[in-house]
């Protein structure tokens, strides 16, 4: 709980900083504040405290803490990069940073809720922050389009979720997750419960951009400012996954055969459609949007092996988000003053800026699942457990998709190392190097010692 309060307070501070003209100190102070919150969240582990607060609105178990740590870490990176990205919009920087911090508050609420109303509040805080950010490049028509599209589709999905929550309330007469969990364990449930859960699942599948609810993702990713795309692709995606998992686990849905069938179908579809579409993209952000769709398929696969689903999913999200963050740090740095994010901007990066090229290469290798990066262990654990659960077909689809994905990840690597650059080298601020290198190093460390993450949940 302390985490959530501290984050919100930090967000309010960001807004006040504007009034007192503390813009220069804003980003460093926010980063330091977030690191402090990260420290205190991690400290809660060692205390082993399981706190339930505010009329059981919030329940901070290990699951919540593990994910909150990841979210805070990602936000640290995002805020750190804000300083340079919004250099030309000094007057608005505190708004942007504050929105990001509030977004984090929503994210933390979405994994530590103990009550469906808290869950919905979390979703809305996160989503509204994202709608605003997607359209934050005010004079850019593409950004406007992205913001509008995201808002329309997103609010529609929120509507589904809200309706689902209402039906569940109608069935059990409570919002409390613990009670719902007990009731839903019973054998005969009213039909409203199933409908409600389906509606919530549809809404969340939209948020994670799984096929067939993925149509918004490429356009919104492409149109939004790169830093916002980074937020969506790393932070927002793993938040939605963590919340979806927590919700479905609480409602005892995993063992049912219908539900497993749906997951199998959506998972295979997401992997395949995402990968095949990604092959044809010229715009890096669009490509990563489709790659994110296919990763959503992989992450959904974790749910199939019930016993280890939580730790598999958690490890996968860490691997995916950190690789994504490193990739976006490079993408933002390279395409900063460009009209678009076409692959041609990366031509010859291996020669003109070896470090950034190496970071991006490592990030892409991790996403493609090449050892010794974390992405490899994420996929490997996933495949092992899914075979164990008896879903060989899904695993084979996953393997074939991993092979396909190499095709487009390497398109970018090829561009960096084989093509000649036509562009003059530009000075790239230190922060991008720092974010890229640190996230890829964390990725490598958890790749070599996967137990660091998987132990957190136990």
């Amino acid at each position, binding site marked *: 709980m302390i985490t959530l309060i501290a984050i919100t307070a930090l967000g309010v501070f960001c807004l006040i900083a504007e009034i007192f003209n503390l813009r220069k100190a804003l980003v460093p102070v926010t980063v330091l504040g977030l690191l402090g919150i990260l420290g205190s969240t991690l400290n809660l582990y060692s205390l082993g405290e399981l706190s339930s607060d505010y009329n059981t609105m919030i329940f901070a178990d290990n699951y919540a803490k593990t994910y909150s740590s990841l979210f805070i870490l990602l936000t640290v990176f995002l805020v750190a990069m804000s300083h340079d990205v919004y250099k030309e919009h000094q007057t608005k920087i505190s708004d942007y940073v504050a929105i990001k911090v509030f977004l984090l508050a929503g994210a933390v609420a979405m994994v530590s809720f103990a009550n469906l109303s808290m869950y919905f509040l979390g979703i809305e805080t996160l989503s509204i922050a994202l709608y605003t950010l997607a359209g934050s490049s005010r004079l850019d028509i593409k950004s406007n389009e992205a913001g509008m599209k995201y808002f329309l589709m997103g609010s529609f999905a929120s509507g589904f979720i809200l309706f689902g929550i209402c039906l569940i309330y109608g069935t059990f007469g409570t919002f409390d997750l613990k009670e719902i969990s007990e009731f839903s364990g019973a054998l005969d449930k009213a039909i409203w419960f199933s409908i409600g859960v389906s509606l919530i699942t549809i809404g969340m599948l939209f948020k994670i951009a799984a096929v067939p609810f993925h149509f918004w993702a490429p356009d919104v990713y492409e149109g939004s400012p790169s830093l916002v795309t980074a937020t969506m692709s790393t932070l927002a995606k793993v938040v939605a996954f963590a919340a979806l998992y927590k919700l479905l686990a609480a409602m005892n849905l995993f063992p049912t055969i219908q539900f497993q069938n749906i997951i199998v179908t959506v998972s295979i579809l997401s992997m395949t459609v995402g990968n095949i579409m990604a092959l044809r993209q010229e715009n890096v952000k669009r490509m990563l949007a489709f790659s994110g769709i296919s990763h959503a398929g992989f992450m959904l696969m974790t749910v199939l092996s019930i016993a280890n689903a939580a730790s598999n999913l958690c490890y996968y999200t860490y691997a995916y988000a950190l690789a994504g963050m490193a990739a976006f740090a490079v993408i933002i740095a390279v395409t900063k003053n460009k009209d678009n994010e076409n692959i041609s901007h990366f031509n010859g990066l291996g020669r003109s800026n070896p470090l950034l090229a190496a970071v991006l290469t490592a990030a892409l290798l991790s996403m493609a699942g090449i050892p010794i990066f974390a992405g490899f262990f994420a996929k490997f654990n996933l495949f092992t457990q899914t075979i164990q659960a008896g879903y060989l077909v899904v695993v084979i689809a996953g393997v074939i998709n991993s*092979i396909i994905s190499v095709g487009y990840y*390497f398109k970018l690597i090829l561009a960096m190392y*084989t093509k000649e650059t036509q562009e003059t080298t530009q000075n790239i601020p230190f922060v991008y190097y720092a974010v890229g290198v640190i996230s890829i190093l964390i990725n490598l460390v958890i790749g070599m*010692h996967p137990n660091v993450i998987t132990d957190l949940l136990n």
Partner: protein
Amino acid sequence: MNVSLILLILLLGALATFLSGDKFASKVALFFSLVALGCSSVLVNHFLGGVDINVNNPWILQPHVSFALKADGLSLAMVLLTVSLTPLIILTGFGNHFEKSKNFYALVLFMAFAMTGTFLAADGLLYYIFWELALIPIYFIALIWGNGDADERKKAVVKFFIYTLGGSLFMLIAFAYLYINAGSFLLEDLYKLNLTATEQTWIFFAFFLAYAIKIPIIPFHTWQAKVYQKAPTIGTMLLSGIMLKMGLYSVIRWQLPIAPLAAKMYMPTLIGLSIAGVIYGSIVALRQKDLKKLLAYSSLAHVGLIAAGCYTLTADGLSGAVSQMIAHGFVIVGLFFAAEVIFRRFGTYKIEDLGGIRPQASKFTSMFMILVLASVALPGTFNFVGEFTVLYSLSQVNIWFAIFGGTTIILGAYYMLKMFQNVMLGETNTKVFADVTINETIVFVILIAFLLFYGLYPKPIVDLVNPSITEILKTINR
């Protein structure tokens, strides 16, 4: 002192080379590869003296993965092949200028590191990681420093990468399945598994896909010739001299003992496929106009025979295959280096533009000739020992296999000698061909000395390898 030391030296060497700067990179790399060679020789002595040089440390608890390295005669022979070829391969680069040579030589050493790891690993997942790691350096070596048209090269290299990665992912699935059944990735635990024939068949073919692509066995060979042609010669040497032996070694170490029933069931098919590769490679080699491509197809033919030897599941077949792996490693590096020596002077690999070199460079001609003869397995060279043993083992299985496999010697002699004639003999070439330099001579002399010495006295290698082959055969026939 244990075998992880070799890995450590090579990895540190890669790092040191990367930090040393472009000027000294090749020398630093050579130094570290020689240290690795020295260290391996000491370790082999320890091993023969009965000292335990294995490593087994827990690494990841869930899933249970250990950092386990096992050194028996077989893996030590392959490690020795790697660490003795690496300095030679680096030495061949002294006559070339590579842009950003620190990256280049660091990648070469890193690749040697990964390949050595593959030969030593005794834990399935560790083995898989090394196996995949070896792919990344060669990808960049071929991509960045390769020759020829950039677009075509890119296509060839990406095809190679996707093929090999795709194959290995199925191997990964097989490992996952084995892990679920055995609860561990350790080689010894996997050997103990009792799988049904159906399970073994699936596992066997998942492995087969990975190895058949790497070796390559027909019909998975289509990536090979283009990549050999487009990669820089050092890359080609690494690929043909060492990397494809990873596939052959893995057949003996992993595929056959883990799924012996399937291996026995499909033996005729597998040997047939391998021998089809021998004949196909030889015939295609006959018609090549590019020197490097010709050597690539000759390599395809030779490894086909080695693979056939492995799949006979006899002591002679396996031991002959290992001898031939080592012999082929040395001879193919020598042949590709000869091609490179010619390229340095004439700037072309096209056979029709060559010819008439002998009158200008007698030393080079003699050394090239010996390598060509070794390649066609003339008695007295190490290749003869290997090839003969393999053919003998094939004749034990079925005489027709031996007869068709034997065409490698006849056809091989034909295309290699024809190539030699076209490249080296004839009227004196109008272009000037300077005879070999000292560095080049050193490489050739060491390679030839090795091939001739062990050709006449193969006992040390055979004695080193045979006990572990016997062990593996025991597991296969359990």
